[in-house]
């Protein structure tokens, strides 16, 4: 039986608590928040036997096996280390840490203490992403991945988030090195990091404040980001983050020499782009039928899962899969659901992106249309080796 605890009793903590309760081999033994009212309310609602306002006291008294750290990222390093020192493994919500140096330190301490950690990249484990992983490991794409495209959008018009972030100049998200981007893009970047085989990664970034943010006087926040990523094995990727694209899309495309895949995470749809040629006009008639059949197949798969009570909303099912896999790794020495290399690579790509766009921001203020007017020579290249 895994004894789980949660540190940081805000909105994310609720999502974790709901999923932990679904795991029969786990029980919540404690929650902790610097604000006693917040700790108490979650303990009451989820019938957790103990609540604390001090992490050290919680670790000493409750002796959890796994601690879910759902505090703002500024505290992840310190809290993570406390957990490891106390012999507990840790699920650390995204954004994992403030920077790669902190991420590396966490991994080092966890290794040193013989405990495990994972990052809150639950979007990696939606049904569609799991299916993509199965197809990829079955060799659908061919012997290697040539290119990837990760599109990750965010609806900044969401009143709750806009209220919290845009209305509060001291909001913790604004104080992150990558500000809004750092809090959101890790899901989309982690998808790329999973399939980058090399260690010498080159990142080219450009970013700007959208016309929407400029209009409401929030031009200090960058909400449009484009990345071009390449490793020494000639695997390339393009990452797009936008708050202005409608509908707000979350898609991932993998291109290989044998075939390609399109993952539409919003609708839990996976499409195969088969390497088949049709003669003459058949190329305009047969492939649409093939796609139609694939869409029907996706529909049947989703409905089937729903009927079997195995669908749930993608982020929730991803969170449950990740937590369950992590617990198995902790309890039964199974492989980690997210290798440390992938966590660190995600962090390194993000660091490189933030470094470049922050430098651009300081060099030249954004123009009124929100477009970065610098020529292509203004884009930075950073080699990560």
């Amino acid at each position: 039986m895994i004894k789980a605890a949660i540190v940081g009793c805000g909105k994310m903590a609720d999502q974790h608590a709901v999923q932990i309760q679904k795991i029969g081999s786990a029980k919540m033994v404690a929650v902790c928040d610097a604000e006693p009212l917040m700790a108490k309310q979650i303990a009451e609602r989820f019938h957790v036997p103990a609540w604390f306002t001090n992490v050290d006291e919680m670790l000493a008294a409750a002796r959890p096996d796994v601690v879910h750290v759902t505090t703002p990222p500024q505290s992840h390093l310190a809290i993570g280390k406390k957990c490891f020192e106390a012999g507990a493994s840790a699920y650390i919500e995204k954004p994992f840490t403030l920077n790669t140096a902190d991420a590396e330190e966490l991994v080092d301490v966890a290794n040193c203490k013989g405990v495990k950690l994972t990052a809150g990249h639950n979007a990696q484990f939606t049904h569609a992403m799991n299916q993509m992983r199965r197809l990829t490991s079955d060799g659908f794409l061919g012997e290697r991945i040539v290119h990837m495209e990760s599109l990750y959008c965010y609806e900044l018009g969401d009143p709750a988030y806009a209220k919290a972030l845009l209305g509060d100049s001291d909001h913790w998200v604004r104080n992150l090195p990558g500000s809004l981007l750092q809090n959101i893009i890790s899901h989309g970047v982690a998808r790329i990091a999973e399939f980058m085989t090399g260690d010498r990664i080159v990142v080219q970034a450009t970013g700007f404040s959208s016309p929407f943010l400029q209009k409401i006087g929030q031009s200090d926040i960058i909400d449009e980001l484009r990345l071009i990523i390449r490793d020494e094995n000639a695997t390339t990727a393009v990452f797009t983050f936008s708050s202005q694209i409608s509908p707000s899309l979350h898609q991932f495309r993998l291109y290989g020499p044998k075939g390609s895949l399109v993952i539409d995470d919003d609708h839990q749809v996976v499409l195969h782009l088969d390497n088949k040629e049709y003669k003459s006009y058949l190329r305009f008639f047969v492939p649409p039928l093939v796609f139609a059949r694939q869409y029907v197949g996706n529909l049947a798969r989703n409905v089937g899962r729903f009927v079997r009570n195995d669908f749930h909303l993608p982020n929730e099912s991803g969170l449950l899969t990740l937590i369950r896999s992590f617990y198995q790794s902790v309890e039964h020495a199974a492989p980690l659901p997210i290798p440390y290399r992938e966590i660190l690579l995600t962090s390194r790509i993000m660091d490189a992106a933030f470094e470049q766009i922050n430098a651009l921001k300081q060099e030249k203020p954004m123009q009124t249309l929100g477009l970065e007017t610098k020529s292509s020579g203004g884009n930075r290249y950073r080699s990560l080796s």
Partner: protein
Amino acid sequence: MNHAYLEERDGEPVLASGPAESAVGFAVQADRTKLIAGSEDQILVTGANGFIGSWVVRTLLARGFTKIRCLTRGTSTPANLDRIRAEFGASGVEVVSGNLLSRDVCAKVMDGVVIVYHLAAGVEKTFPGCFLNSAVTTRNLLDAVTSAGNVRRFVNISSLAVYSNAQLRSGGALDETCPIDTRLVERYDPYAYGKAKQDEIVREYGRLRGLPYVIARPGVTFGPGKAKIPGRVGIDAFGVFLHLGLGNRMPLTYVENCAEAIVLAGLTAGINGEEFNIVDDDLPRSRTFLRRYKRKVRRIRTIPVPYSLFYLFNFAWEKYSAWSGAQLPPVFNRGTCEAYYKSQTFSNQKAKSLLGWHPRVSMSEALDRFCAYARERVVKA
């Protein structure tokens, strides 16, 4: 100690002087003819730019108050307050932008304040979000109130949604004697949960620290500024309006009338520790409301849904949600169905008796004003 205070004569505020109710912890006999704050006293209104809050500010100004500090969340452009300042002049209205999660903000806004109208609330979809922005913010503000030491009344705005009507028969009276619902989590009602916890904290400060408070629970507040059909009438389901209220009385309160009651709750002497509901007179039935809406605002397709059928649907949804591990979250459940769609009657006798309040705008006139506004919005859209 004598204080200048406002006395109502022939419905108009008149400055008078005499012994005033003291600060924290001192209660006197109810006396509706005396008001515990004078026109020069500092008033604080939190959530002042909101739907009800802005009408509270307007009502205070109309009553001659000249020092009204309005706290707004930094997120919103204080459009309502801007209009009020344009209408009444800017001198009496001090707009402060800040978040009650900051204790510094709480301490700052409490400087010199004698009456607090606390309308700011967490209106979110999650339990922690509502709790944080209702209960934690209120605790922060109350700490500042008790530190300031000169507050004569803390008016806590709660909601009719916190009551349980589970033990009431259909058609029974939902009033201040009804218990607070202890199953708000099972009801999946984060807003009501946040409000109930906020009330608990206020009562605790009253008990342990002598906070002079009243708790006001408005019903469904409506009026120009809110064009949507209240949820107690029914819900929009994929373009078809499911009429759930049918013959139920709607616990409506017109925003102007509601604001008047709230203002009096802060000023009336001798009512510390009281809790009362605010609904108007002549409450219409749901079908009357909907009929008028269709006639005066726009035609909409509606399907009447009997309570028993909707209850059955909620029962089935609730059971499926529990069985499936919330594959469908329990947004529909028997508790919510009962709380919002069981036929009840509502009383405003306590508010009238304590405050000497009477809704100035008749229900018919209020409905006409609402419909005119909603129609305007439809035309604009």
